[in-house]
């Protein structure tokens, strides 16, 4: 019998259509897989057996009645714990929201439910999405299925690991500086950050509102397109959500799957490579570029000189917004409440202070302090103001580059997965993981990470990133799917087929 957990979502959807399986069987198979391997991987913070199976039964009933809600109706999914889910805890990886059950659904969650995707559970993440390794989760790290001693990337390491470990065929991630794409690269999965405003942020617990974007985490480009079409599109509850209709993404992925790139102009970004990039990562990237050239693409080099300032600008804008967003966690209305010891009749302020001290982790505190400082009167212009100017320059660099090329490409992350604990004491080294992914967030343009192969020196997966102009998300799928086809031909199958088998229990 076929192992249902090994199949792509598009294949599972076809089997459901053909009556070859049921949503209950699919959901049960994935719940069993989670039970078997998640003790080692720790991709999930909460698994919702009953809710998932109830949704699966409802899906099967719909299908029996000839009333299918979407092309993915019945295919189960994992959701990053940053997305508010009614009736399901949403902790954002933080002690300060331990046990918090939202009374409402994020628009993304509501759209998943409306489209009939059973939600398997909530995935682990760096606390408040602050990190590149999932080590900053207050509930312990997630382990990379390729090597359990290594990080799965972050902040959405849980979603990427769940998909890579075949615990879920699909997952939702969020990407503020690379939190979908970088985990995708280091776990050999596909991750998409849509155009800013392309997917509603309503119900996404904000880290940096002007940068955050939810998107698909999958094992194939086509699956990502299918999921993107389910969650994307205008939402009146999110003022920054785009009015423009989504481009046809699934069609673009199917077109790209032929592997033909004739006439497509591809720009290699000079600034996203070289020093700081691991040799094996660069080698796999060069292979990918060569394959695309052979497939008919016009490859040009483009220069984006302001990208060198992207990381610095990001680490001013993101903490500034975060410091304000996280102010609401004050023990007054929900979440953790710590009554300070040694104070008679503690005031509200005393309780706020004690709660925030106990409830936030080191990295969160670091960013709150950075952001509070950057927004302070007398420093605002020098820090936040300057960072916004850099942002404008980066947008101009992108505009100029997209005059020369239809899409831009680079390695997704400078290195493969590092060992758990290796960079925990060196925040700056940790921040450098996002050096190639951050420019897209600052400019609001979409990006996809597709597996590019294994680095020779460590045998671990690397990723190639494709970036497109705002609103042209279809180009990601066209080029991403072509690249996937070309690479899989050289590998003789999906990269994840080469991942070591996990011990099951």
């Amino acid at each position, binding site marked *: 019998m076929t192992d249902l957990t090994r199949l792509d979502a598009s294949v599972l959807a076809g089997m459901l259509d053909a009556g070859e399986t049921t949503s209950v069987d699919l959901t049960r198979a994935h719940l069993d897989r989670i039970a078997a391997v998640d003790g080692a991987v720790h991709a999930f913070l909460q698994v919702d057996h009953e809710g998932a199976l109830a949704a699966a039964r409802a899906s099967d009933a719909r299908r029996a009645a000839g009333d299918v809600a979407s092309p993915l109706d019945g295919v189960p999914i994992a959701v990053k714990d940053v*997305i*508010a889910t009614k009736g399901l805890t*949403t902790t*954002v990886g933080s002690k300060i*929201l331990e046990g*918090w059950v*939202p*009374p*409402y659904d*994020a628009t993304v969650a509501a759209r998943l439910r409306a489209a009939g995707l059973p939600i398997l559970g909530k995935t682990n993440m760096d606390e408040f999405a602050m990190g590149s390794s999932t080590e900053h989760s207050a509930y312990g790290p997630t382990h990379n299925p390729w090597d359990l001693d290594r990080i799965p990337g972050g902040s959405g390491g849980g979603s990427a690991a769940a998909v890579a470990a075949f615990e879920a065929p699909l997952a939702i991630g969020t990407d503020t500086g690379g939190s979908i794409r970088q985990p995708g690269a280091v776990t050999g999965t596909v991750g998409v950050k849509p155009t800013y405003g392309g997917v509603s*942020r*309503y*119900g*996404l*617990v*904000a880290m*940096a*509102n*002007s940068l955050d974007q939810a998107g698909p985490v999958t094992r194939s480009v086509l699956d990502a397109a299918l999921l993107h079409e389910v969650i994307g599109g205008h939402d*009146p*509850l*999110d*003022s*920054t959500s785009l009015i423009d209709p989504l481009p046809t993404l699934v069609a673009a992925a199917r077109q790209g799957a032929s592997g033909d790139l004739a006439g497509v102009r591809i720009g290699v970004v000079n600034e996203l490579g070289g020093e700081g990039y691991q040799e094996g990562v660069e080698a796999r990237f060069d292979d990918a570029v060569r394959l695309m050239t052979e497939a008919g693409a016009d490859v040009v080099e483009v220069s984006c000189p302001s990208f060198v300032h992207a990381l610095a600008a990001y680490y001013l804008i993101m903490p*500034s*917004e975060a*410091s*304000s967003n996280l*102010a*609401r*966690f*004050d023990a*007054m*209305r*929900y979440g953790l409440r710590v009554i300070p010891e040694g104070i008679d009749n503690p005031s*509200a*302020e005393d309780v*706020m202070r004690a709660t925030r001290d106990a409830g936030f982790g080191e990295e969160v505190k670091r960013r709150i302090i950075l952001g*509070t400082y950057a*927004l*302070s*009167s007398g420093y*605002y212009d020098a820090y*936040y103001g300057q960072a916004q100017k850099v942002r404008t320059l980066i947008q101009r660099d992108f505009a100029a580059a997209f005059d020369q090329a239809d899409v831009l490409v680079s390695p997704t992350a400078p290195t493969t997965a590092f060992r758990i604990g290796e960079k925990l004491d060196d925040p700056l080294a940790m921040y450098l993981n996002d050096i190639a992914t951050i420019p897209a967030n600052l400019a609001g343009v979409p990006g996809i990470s597709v597996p590019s192969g294994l680095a020779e020196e460590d045998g671990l997966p690397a990723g190639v990133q494709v970036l497109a102009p705002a609103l042209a998300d279809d180009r990601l799928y066209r080029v991403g799917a072509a690249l996937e086809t070309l690479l899989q031909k050289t590998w003789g199958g999906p990269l994840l087929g080469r991942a070591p088998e996990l011990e099951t229990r």
Partner: protein
Amino acid sequence: MSVTGTLVDFDAALEQFDPALGLEVHVELNTASKMFCGCPTEFGAEPNTQTCPTCLGLPGSMPVVNRSAVESAMKIGLALNCEIAEWCRFARKNYFYPDMPKNFQTSQYDEPIAFDGWTEVDVDGTTYRVEIERAHMEEDTGKSLHVGTSGRIHGADYSLVDYNRAGIPLIEIVTRPVMGTGAHAPAVARAYVGQLRELLLGLGVSDVRMEQGSLRCDVNLSLAPRGSGGLGTRTETKNVNSLRSVERAVRYEISRHAAVLGGGGSILQETRHWHEDTGVTTSGREKSDADDYRYFPEPDLVPVAPSREWVEDLRATLPEPPRVRRARLQQDWGFSDLDMRDTIGAGALGLVEETIAAGASPQAARKWWLGELARRANETDNELTALPVTPADVARVQAMVDEKTINDKLARQVLDGVLAGEGTPDEVVASRGLAVVSDEGALSAAVDTAIAANPEVADKIRDGKVAAAGALIGAVMKEMRGQADAGRVRELILEKLS
């Protein structure tokens, strides 16, 4: 609580100093829903029943700007002769306070929707120009209730917060310093707020109930040495929530500042609290440059960019400016300045206007609204507009008096009935049987009875002492339970005793 002991006499203070006024008025809009979510805005609902993830600031929730609040803000701006921004943003004002769900207030900072306006107020025949610096949009906070003996945050046993008010749309209207008002400063402040109230009522954008907090006023005041043309250090007095208090607070602060400055001291830039009961201000928290709200543009909202067509459409719908309207009405009605001031002060201008439109004379309309009905409103702690009686009812009551269907005393009983919800004036007259008895037979009999019962009085009248008729009239009215026309009773008595 420390109360500054010494005050300088108001007139003496103004011999030495020139006051500068600044007024910040917060207006709660009467939109059906809140500033950034769809929750209802009705006043007085059970605590925390008009809330949702957005106005509770739950993790993940997001704001969406209320279009009709933007429209109201623009109307206010236009009525105050402001420029309307072609493009403006909201900002976050960051500070921690339990009644703020997000621990930041979504407000406008350096990009207000309306700016650079002006209005004029008249005090004792002098016209003062008040320049408007800005009118900006923001959201209200929740309301804290400190439970315990003190009723204040310090010493409270515990505190409760009602978030029904959180997210109600507010417009903050800020003046530039108003200089050169001298001894008129308190009256100018009062006239400005009063006129603003009228303007907002006329625009229909707010209920402007000061007692419910839908119009809240902060008074800034500073003194500079007379003739210096400079600006002294200011204090900001909060919680000044009636027109009378605005006037008193300015007066008090002028005297207090003069005492401090005259004694060689200096004014502390601070927030002060106004105490309605004792008529004094006390020191609140010290306000200094250390207050750092870390403003930055709200990243969850897109800029507000009203089209010029929208602005011009709104401009075309603006009602007549209050000052112009008042001058016109005063002339039409033949009111004295004092009559006019009292009418405006009582918030009765519109009511009087409508009553006149319904057929009453100006004097009669004013008499009812500022007399009997103002007394009833006071008794029940209501605004005049909140009384369950319409201008048409009042005009009808007066018409019945004019027709001699009822007299003044009965008219008050008719109003009682209307206020008690017994129906229209005509229905009350019918159901309570209040019409004056015009049955000459019954009247005549009552007069005969009174004459028979009071022979000495009757004799006096027969002797020509007509003034004695009062006693007999009283007896007849008592017999008729007040339902008689006193004039006709007098005539009958004199006829019978001539």
